[in-house]
Structure formats: C-alpha cells, structure tokens
C-alpha cells in the first residue's frame, strides 16, 4: 500500500517526518555523498550567528555509554557566509532548509533573522535557546520562561518565517517553557537539545571536556526526550513538535510520533552513519505499510496511557 508520509506543521509542509538536527548535520552538503538531501523532510543546519564563531578550545567531545558529550561552542561560518556559500548549493540540491539561529543577546538573534529576511529558500527558522556550551546566550534563554518570552517576541516581530523554538531539557518544568515560547509567538517547538553532563578522566582527575561540562546526546537520552515530548503534547495539543533525542532506528522514529511529535530530527546518529536519515524515510514507509497505517501522521500522539492507580500492586 502507498503510505502518505507528508507532514503539515502549521504553515510548514514537509515531504516526510524525517529531518536532521542542528549541530549534527553540518550545512547539509557534507552529507551529499551519503544520501539524497532532497529526500529528507528537512535539514536543520549548524547554528548560525551574526558573525563567524571559532567555538571552544579542544578537547570538545568524548564518548559515553550509549552516547557522547560535546562542548563545541557553536563554531560556525556566520549567517552571511552561510547565505552566500552554502545555501545556494543546498537549495539547488532540493533540500528543505531550516536555519538554526543563535546569539549572545536578543539583538544578536534579531540581527541573524533580519539578515535572512524573507529568503524563500529557507523553510523555517529554528531558535537555539538551549545550547549548554556557551557562556552567554544559549541555554540562559531556554531556562527562564520570562527571558524566553521576551526573546521570542522580539524575533517574532522581526520575521514572517515559520518560527520554531528548540527547547532545553535542563529545566524542572518543560511545559512552562514550552507554553512561554508558544504564547510569545512560536509556530512550533523542537525538543530536546542535549542534557548537561560531566565525564571525568580518573588518571588526571580532570574533566574529559575542555569546557568542563558538555551536552549529552545519543540513545542514552531517548527516554528523557520521549517523556518531554509527551508532556508538552498533553499540555499543548495543537502545537507542531519536532521530537529528537537518541533516534537510531525506525522504531525510535515511531516512538516519538506516538509520544506526540509531528516530525523527528535525527541527531548524533548522523555521525555514526551518515546514510541513516535517508534510509529511515524508506523504513518508515515500510513500517507503516506492514501495519496498514495509511498516513504516518495518523500515529502522532496516539500513546495510550492508563491511570497510574492501575499500576499499583494489589
């Protein structure tokens, strides 16, 4: 049977729900040898700043059990070089491009968004308010509903693009920050970014990461990500959601859809297997066909939970 994989997320229409996550997919072009960029639902590019950014001194990464820590520090070519040198080729290859944007302060975010302007080659803007690896900006916005609200309002006023806000999991109440972003004008949410972690070299008793802490990603964080997607979906039934965190297989994709995500972003797994995201599109179609699911969107938010009293032992 022919399965309909298309996704409508408010004004944002995707070919399918398999996108790739910012910070794990470069500017997309690096993957052109390994998959068809036009076959993906969307590509969220490396976080763009007003000016080029060198990032943090190494060591920047270390492997952990079922995942890794990173503190890259948002190294990127800057929005101008992206628009001039990367976007034309990305667009020519037929990619649906999400511009991930970050800054130290509100005016930096606004400056990047204004620089993008009304460029139709960009399908959506994704605000990174959740990077744990920079001293200013980043997660400082994502951890505080008031600061987040003020930022999103300023960016909202500066762009007519679909505005996605990528949330930090390093909060007590994910629903409060999600609500603040939506009330301030976000069209959609991405969750989750990395969880702040620490790894230690016992021989030297120093952190394995130069920045001391880093963001944990990979399969280790998937249960946390699923829980947060589910909580936000319950509280905000209408808001379009990109779910992400440790997706490696088609079953993982479907888990996120069932928890309430309309689409997913493949992240750290792109490092291990640069062909994976492309393969998952076909596998999702096959998974749905085998189970007579006519539209992938029919799976969204279909988690069946029982009242917790039922779980008590008699």
């Amino acid at each position: 049977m022919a399965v309909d994989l298309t996704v409508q997320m408010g004004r944002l229409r995707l070919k399918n729900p398999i996108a790739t996550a910012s910070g794990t997919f470069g500017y997309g072009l690096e993957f052109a040898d390994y998959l068809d960029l036009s076959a993906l639902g969307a590509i969220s590019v490396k976080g763009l700043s007003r000016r080029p950014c060198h990032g943090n001194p190494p060591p920047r990464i270390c492997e952990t059990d079922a995942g890794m820590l990173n503190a890259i520090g948002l190294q990127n070519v800057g929005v101008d070089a992206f628009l001039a040198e990367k976007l034309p080729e990305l667009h020519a290859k037929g990619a649906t491009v999400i511009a991930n944007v970050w800054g130290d302060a509100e005016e930096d975010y606004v400056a990047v968004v204004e620089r993008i302007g009304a460029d139709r080659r960009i399908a959506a803007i994704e605000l990174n308010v959740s990077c744990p690896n920079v001293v200013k900006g980043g997660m400082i916005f994502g951890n505080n509903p008031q600061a987040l609200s003020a930022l999103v309002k300023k960016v909202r006023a500066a762009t007519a693009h679909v505005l996605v806000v990528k949330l930090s999991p390093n909060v007590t109440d994910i629903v409060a920050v999600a609500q603040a972003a939506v009330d301030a004008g976000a069209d959609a949410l991405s969750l989750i970014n990395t969880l702040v972690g620490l790894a230690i070299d016992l021989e030297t008793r120093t952190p394995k990461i130069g920045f001391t802490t880093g963001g944990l990603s990979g399969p280790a964080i998937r249960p946390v990500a699923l829980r947060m997607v589910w909580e936000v979906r319950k509280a905000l039934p209408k808001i379009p959601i990109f779910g992400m965190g440790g997706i490696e297989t088609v079953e993982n994709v479907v888990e996120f859809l069932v928890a309430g995500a309309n689409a997913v972003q493949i992240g750290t797994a792109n490092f291990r297997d640069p062909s994976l995201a492309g393969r998952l599109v076909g596998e999702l179609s096959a998974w749905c066909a085998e189970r007579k699911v006519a539209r992938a969107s029919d799976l969204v938010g279909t988690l069946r939970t029982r009242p917790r009293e039922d779980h008590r032992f008699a």
Partner: protein
Amino acid sequence: MAVNETLRVLRTLHYDAAHYSLFLQAGTIGASARPGHFAMLQAGDGLRPYLRRAFSIADVTTVAGVPAIEFVVKTVGVGTGALGRLPEGTPVPVLGPLGVPFPTDDLKPGDRVALVAGGIGLAPLVLLARTLAARGLAADLYYGGRNENDVLKRADFERFLGPHRCRYATDDGSLGRRGRVTDILAHALEGGTSYRRVFACGPLPMFRTLAALVEKAGLDASFAMESEMACGFGVCLGCVAPTADGRFATICKEGPCVPPSFIDWKKV
C-alpha cells in the same frame, strides 16, 4: 570520494597483547585509498562503543589472494579492544577513504624523503613506503618506540625501502639506538643529510620536537595528525586543533596530513 560500505573481517593478526593488524575486504575504499587517508570503523552493535573509530589506512594488500585493507591498531580502550576481537567474516561498517592524504604528487625521481614514526604512528607510513618504493623514490625510515615491541611491521618497511634505509630508536635500547626517534633524525641532519620532504606520524611530544627540528633545518614536512573524532567528515567539529592563523581546524577534513606550520604548537 568517500563511501559508506560494509567490509568483512578477513584476518586479525595479533603482534602482542597491545597491538594487532586488522585486515578487511578492500571494497571501494581500498581501490581509492592513498597514503595518509583514514577510515571510520564501527565495532559492535553501536551502544558500546557508540561512535566509530578513526584509523589510518595502513596498507592496501591481499590476504590469501583477496584484496584487503590493513589497519594497524594499538589497544587503548573499548573501541580498539572490541575491533580486535571481531571474528573472521564479521561485517564492519566502514566510511572512507577520508581526509587530506600525504602530498606525494609533486615528488620527482631522485628526490629523497624521510619517514618518521613514533609508536603506533607507523600506521599511515606503511602504505606511503609501499607507494614511494613503487615509484622508485628513495626514502629513509626513522622509527622510534618505548621498546622493541612498539616497533611494528619492520619486515614490510625493510622490504619496501631496503634494510639499510631503516633506522630505529627505543627508550630502553632494545632495538636500534637508545633514545628518541627525533634524536637519530637530528643526528642525520647534522651529518649533512637533507630531505625533499619529511613525512611523520606519532605522539604529540614527537610532533613538537620534530616541528622545531624541520623548521630549523628548513625542511618541508607533512604530519599525519591524530584526534578523537565522532564523524570523520567535518560535521561534529569535535576533532579540531588550534591553527597558526588563530582558528580551530578540523583534523578530519583539513587534515589529517598538514604541514607543521599549519598548527599552533603552543596551544595544542
């Protein structure tokens, strides 16, 4: 162009408890590999170790007549340990060939070059020695380790380059001269030997000393740098090194083979 393919284990040759050669089917990667290229290898089911590991393509050879690529590995952790235990026939996901190889195209007959290896840094120099020998270029090997067991694949080097061109140094004097590999190279340079280019791979202290040595002697050089990396093709930005022009460059994409003047050795 790099490819993402699955290659089977043909043979694993253990030299001692800490070192082995892993031979995989050559695949497309073997057909296009050049000296200094590397590949990313996955061991296990992907949870532990989670990430692929980067290894120099040590040689393109055959195992019982079957085209093979060889990786020379030192067991240092969970990834290198797991790869060394894979049974013959195990399919291994491999991405490669990756990175900037050693610059060799401009070498001409009559040029004399040096190969400098420290410990497991021999890995990218085996295929280089084979390639240079096939082109009829004269190359001297300077190879150092802590002891005789650290100095691997001597027979291959001596076959490609000639035994008289292979010089060794060990910390304990169990093979060759007692001392560091950079000492025996410095001695040769002081004696009037000169090289069109110095190719090197080894640990950071060796690179530091060698960078100063080749700069003082005014020699052209190419260092195959090592770094932990998650992806191997320029997107994780985890493997960077500080550069002389004040930025962070990916070892996987701008390297691994770079001139020593490219790196800011004070900040490494």
